[in-house]
């Protein structure tokens, strides 16, 4: 995600007011600025291009300047029904992407937290082995097991459903790992105090561990939401019904017209859709970042 990295870099460089120019900093900043430009310029280009008509874009490629077709393109991207069956517009796709992103993030957080809770707090026989087995699945992304996963989902008749879209993705080694590390840093006495206060395992988890993990949950949510939002391969495979298309998938759908050779692809609309697709992850990062910086500085623990 170009935008996330970008906003981090900006936040860091503006946080420290430069009192005096130090020469060794100039080299550092040159690298930072080059990196920032490398990531920002394409975003700007696609944004500028979203204000041009399809013909110009088709003939002359992406544009740096602005033209007057912006309202048109965004309107078309959001509200014009398109696709093979004319049953999906930008708003539907936006909703689908949100459902996928949020469901994906929340699912991963819940599963990861519960797995970590079991591994850290219960005297299980093979807890360490189980943890390392979960951890190794980091090496096995969805793409590796995509065929069997697809088999299972179609066998369960979950193709073209949100359940089929989200559930196979939510087992998470990353979240389990981070929550495990966090839980291990929670002082032992807290558990003992809770035991004396009569909190059983479920109560301890909900009353104490979950509120304590707020900042961790926020951090996980950012990462997982963006990750889920940008899923491409799995949604492409599992959703053939166009009303379930996500934004990322939708962009490709528009470009598809070119490959079919039926008409001029709606480049302007595609650019507009790309910008629309970028916005929610950026907003999530911006919104949650301020929230979790606050959480960190209050230093509850």
């Amino acid at each position, binding site marked *: 995600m170009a935008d996330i990295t970008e906003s981090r870099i900006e936040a860091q460089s503006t946080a420290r007011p430069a009192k005096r120019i130090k020469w060794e900093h100039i080299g550092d900043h040159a690298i930072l600025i080059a990196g920032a430009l490398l990531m920002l310029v394409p975003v700007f280009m696609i944004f500028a291009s979203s204000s041009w008509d399809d013909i110009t874009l088709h003939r002359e490629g992406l544009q740096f300047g602005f033209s007057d077709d912006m309202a048109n393109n965004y309107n078309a991207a959001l509200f014009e029904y398109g696709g093979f069956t004319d049953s999906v517009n930008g708003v539907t796709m936006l909703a689908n992407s949100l459902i996928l992103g949020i469901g994906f993030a929340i699912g991963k957080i819940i599963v990861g937290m519960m797995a970590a809770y079991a591994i850290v707090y219960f005297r299980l026989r093979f807890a360490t082995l189980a943890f390392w087995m979960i951890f190794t699945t980091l090496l096995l992304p969805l793409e590796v097991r995509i065929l069997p996963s697809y088999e299972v989902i179609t066998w369960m008749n979950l193709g073209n459903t949100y359940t089929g879209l989200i559930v196979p993705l939510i087992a998470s080694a990353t979240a389990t790992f981070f929550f495990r590390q966090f839980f291990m840093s929670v002082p032992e006495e807290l558990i*003992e105090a809770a035991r*004396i206060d009569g909190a059983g395992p479920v109560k301890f988890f909900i009353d*104490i561990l979950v509120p304590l993990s707020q900042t961790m949950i926020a951090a996980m949510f950012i990462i997982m939401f963006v990750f889920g939002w940008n899923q491409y391969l799995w949604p492409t495979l599992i959703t053939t019904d166009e009303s379930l298309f996500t934004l990322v998938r939708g962009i490709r759908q528009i470009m598809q017209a070119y490959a079919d050779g039926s008409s001029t692809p709606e480049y302007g609309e595609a650019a507009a859709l790309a910008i629309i697709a970028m916005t929610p992850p950026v907003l999530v990062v911006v919104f949650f970042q301020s929230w979790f910086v606050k959480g960190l500085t209050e230093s*509850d623990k």
Partner: protein
Amino acid sequence: MAKVKLDGVRKVYPNGVEAVEPCDIDIPDGELVVLVGPSGCGKSTLLRMVAGLEEITDGTLMIGDAVMNDVEPANRNIAMVFQNYALYPHMTVAKNMGYGLKNRGLPKAEINQKVAEAAKMLNLSEYLNRRPSQLSGGQRQRVAMGRAIVRSPELFLFDEPLSNLDAKLRNQMRIEIRALQQRLGVTAMYVTHDQVEAMTLADRIIVLNAGRIEQIGTPGEIYSQPASTFVASFMGAPPMNIFTGTSDGQQATLDGGVSLNGAGAPSHTGKIQIGIRPEDVALDASGPLPFEVEIVEELGAHRLLHGRLSGQPFSVSVNKDQPAQTGPAKVALKPGAVHFFDAEAGRRL
């Protein structure tokens, strides 16, 4: 309120280490017992076994008239105060104090009333809506106490509750804890490694060493009649001087040749250990014992003289208006100053 009885209670860890040897302790109703010893002596393990946080390997634990070995901590009707307070960081003071009651299913109004009462007793009323992170160390300690009080337990357990506080606050909180425990009349077990805390707080002290009870007694007994050289040197600051020597049944002689005339001697003959508290010695120009002073430590209210008696290290504590300098001096022993211990196990003779 309840009496507590430990009968042969023992802790062996799965790796075979015996953390607590079988011990018998009887605590009458309303007494404050302090478990004291160096780190790793098993005092915390013992307390945690009473709390139910640690399984009891052998023996029986009774609180009141019920055997508690296999009862969940929450159902033992105890309250525990931890060293690092163990407050729930995300809850307000009021919620921290009321959490245990809430889990017992008490109605809200009753919880609020009990919390308000405890807060008033501990001067915390104005902090009820704060988070623990917004409180000072002493206030957090009080919240932890409050959390213990609202449960109206039969037994308080304190696990080094003052060791995270600075010295001044510690003295103040010590007095508060003592006053509170006496006012509520609740039986209490208190773990510390600080012998001053033990002496000042306790009705009775249990001195532990390497998982074994060395001595159980009132602070006075522990101080004046230490059961072993370990107790003698652990309790009291500066610690008791321990010499090696011999006894012929009539008279004790320090290794190095100086005889303790008139101090008596154990019937045991042969090698022994001899203990003398630094404050049981007086500088006296006509005294019988030659003392070579090497260092004078000024402590304000008194002075500590470190040096050698009969070639062995010796410390003497004298009053602040007693002049002292390094060099040879003479000392006399106060009556009853000399304690005798056997040479090997260090048991009192």
